[in-house]
């Protein structure tokens, strides 16, 4: 029997070199170095213990990653104190951080805030972040999609006034990048703001309320393009974190089901469960392609809007599915506080909202690839 139908002819064949979806040797070496470090310094029991402390962030680990290994500067050119690498390398770091649900502000500071500063040409601050002299965050809610509206503070008499909520990793930031109602993006010293922790669903990526009561800020550029670029990179590279998370939960679940016996057999030998795990494996293989494509597209700045939207329209469902299956298939153990799988479920679900939901990214895609929605339904009469 023929097994593969003829592919339909392409609407418009585009002969081009296309994305590089593999990992280079250097990227694999980077992965190995980060994984080694996390194995030694970011064990699940420690992450769990930290979530219940007053300092949920692992600042010592962040200092090693950002400064010691120079990872905070991957996206920053060498002349500004960075590594002059790119999004592909940052994506590999995020895969490993996702595997460990590491409570460090890599995505928020080294990716999102750094991209915003690069967009503004705020070279002094870029250098500070890249060299780990300081940590920065973009003060918009973590759930904001690229291009979506977000809260701003008021600019009055040369100072900033207002409140921003659900700002990820604000508690460890030295500098806050704050959008104001005059269209500017302002760099605010964290000491000039009141940062109040909020109780987050994801205990490993703490959120805070940022209040400004007449704080001084330096205008570094226009907010709109900077925020859009920052959130696009954040959304695109988040897919790699989600990939790492999905992979870890799948690997742990497979290992557990090989050991765990019921009905005098390893539970993983039952076909109903094997099919669920095989399905998850298939989803993670697909997520890897989508995440690599987004990282490569951001690095080359080619097709990046579509690649990011595709990755984020796909990734959340896979990461959440993997974490939910891990909880279910670990049985009662999966419901305990001691087993780390709940940290992964909370991160996965929180990631599903971070930098825009899958639905928001599908809406973006509809415009980008010319699949417009029907007109809005008329309001009901009477």
């Amino acid at each position, binding site marked *: 029997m023929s097994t593969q139908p003829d592919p339909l002819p392409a609407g418009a064949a585009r002969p081009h070199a296309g994305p590089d979806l*593999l990992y280079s040797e250097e990227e694999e070496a980077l992965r190995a170095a980060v994984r080694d470090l996390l194995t030694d310094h970011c064990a699940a029991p420690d992450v769990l213990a930290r979530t219940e402390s007053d300092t949920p962030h692992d600042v010592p680990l962040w200092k090693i990653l950002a400064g010691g290994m120079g990872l905070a500067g991957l996206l920053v050119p060498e002349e500004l104190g960075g590594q002059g690498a790119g999004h592909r390398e940052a994506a590999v770091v995020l895969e490993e951080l996702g595997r460990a649900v590491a409570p460090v502000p890599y995505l928020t500071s080294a990716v999102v805030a750094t991209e915003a500063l690069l967009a503004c040409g705020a070279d002094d601050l870029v250098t500070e972040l890249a060299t780990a002299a300081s940590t920065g965050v973009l003060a918009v809610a973590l759930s904001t999609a690229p291009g979506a509206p977000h809260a701003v503070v008021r600019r009055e008499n040369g100072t900033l006034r207002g409140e921003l909520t659900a700002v990820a990793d604000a508690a460890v930031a030295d500098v806050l990048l704050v959008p104001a109602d005059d269209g500017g993006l302002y760099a605010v010293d964290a000491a000039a703001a009141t940062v109040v922790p909020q109780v987050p669903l994801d205990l490993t990526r703490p959120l805070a309320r940022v209040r400004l009561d007449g704080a001084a800020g330096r205008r570094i550029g226009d907010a709109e393009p900077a925020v859009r670029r920052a959130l696009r990179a954040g959304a695109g590279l988040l897919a790699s974190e989600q990939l790492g998370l999905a992979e870890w939960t799948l690997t742990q679940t497979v290992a557990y089901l090989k050991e765990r016996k019921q009905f005098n057999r390893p539970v993983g030998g039952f076909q109903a469960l094997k099919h669920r795990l095989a399905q998850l494996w298939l989803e993670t293989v697909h997520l890897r392609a989508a995440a690599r494509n987004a990282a490569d597209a951001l690095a080359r700045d080619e097709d990046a809007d579509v690649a990011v939207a595709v990755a984020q329209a796909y990734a959340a469902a896979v990461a959440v599915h993997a974490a939910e299956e891990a909880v279910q298939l670990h049985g009662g153990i999966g419901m305990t506080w001691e087993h780390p799988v709940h940290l992964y479920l909370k991160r996965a679900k929180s990631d599903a909202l971070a930098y825009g939901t899958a639905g928001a990214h599908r809406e973006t895609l509809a415009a980008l690839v010319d699949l417009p*929605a029907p007109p809005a339904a008329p309001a009901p009469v009477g």
Partner: protein
Amino acid sequence: MTAETLDAAGLRRRARELLAAHPPATTDRLAFLRARFDAGLAWVHFPEGLGGLGAPRALQAVVDAELEAAGAPDNDPHRIGIGLGMAAPTLLRYGTDEQKRRFLRPLWTGQEVWCQLFSEPGAGSDLAALGTRAVRDGEDWIVDGQKVWTSSAHLARWAILIARTDPALPKHQGITYFLCDMTDPGVEVRPLRQITGEAEFNEVFLTGVRIPDAHRLGAVGDGWRVAQTTLMNERVSIGGMRLPREGGMIGPVARTWRERPGLRTHDLHQRLLTLWVEAEVARLTGERLRQQLAAGQPGPEGSGMKLAFAGLNQRISGLEVELRGEEGLLYDDWTMRRPELVDFTGRDAGYRYLRSKGNSIEGGTSEILLNIVAERVLGLPAEPRTDKDVAWKDLAR
């Protein structure tokens, strides 16, 4: 032959020499294909004298591109897919020198079409349960049984066939692999009409068919192992193609959406976008797999590609029928046809919907492929087997 001539430049030069000696514009199609085979440019990774040069497999693309650009005829690979994808690699690995010399060239040129006589009414996913018998009679074997789901049987000159030669052994043993002449007396091909109305495949009845022992492939009783080569190659060939964005089944649906705004609803929009994303991600996964193979890093991802495309094609074509509204209630043609190829392009959405149901059954059901992923990729234990050490003749049927 020196190794350095087998790089991309060397192969490109050989392709140009072939084109110079046999200009496609003035050379008969079959003559050109034979000359290409004899020049070792048919499948460059095959040995010299058998259509190849012992070159790296990845360099085939260089030759194909060079010849295609010059307007050379190809061997219509879709039409002879079973011969190319299944029979040829198995012949190469297990055939005698005489068998390779006899069969590979007409197979590659498409002069002789092949089909595959594996599945039986009682042996599909559990292929090793097959009951077609082959009994030794002097220099021949006498074969009796029934095969089913046989694509191209009505066009085929030759078939690869597995039959039971020792029923006293457990089911995976006592099987032998043969090359069956489809024109022999006792071979009867009957069309099987399908869900789509057409008869794309067949039942094949084998009644006292005499196969000379010279047409046995591999040792007597070793047929299961030989068949594994065939089946592995069947699955390797899937997913290696390169598609542009919207290059698969999502393409026609997206075009209909753009061209006919009157059909749009909000529910269909959400479903279309979800499937568009899945199609794009599956395309990228295929592209990643292709890059891995080209870089000499074959991964286990290939096992999943057929699974993914099967489900996706079914959901996309299902959406397409709904999108067409009133037209979705109609069907283009229920006439019983005997197509040489599965033609998704030339038919309507209803046909695509019905035919794609076969994608999760043919070439290994999705359920079996999920087992393969779970056991071979994830290393999960196999289900307990009650039939493993029992003689085939003693199994309940």
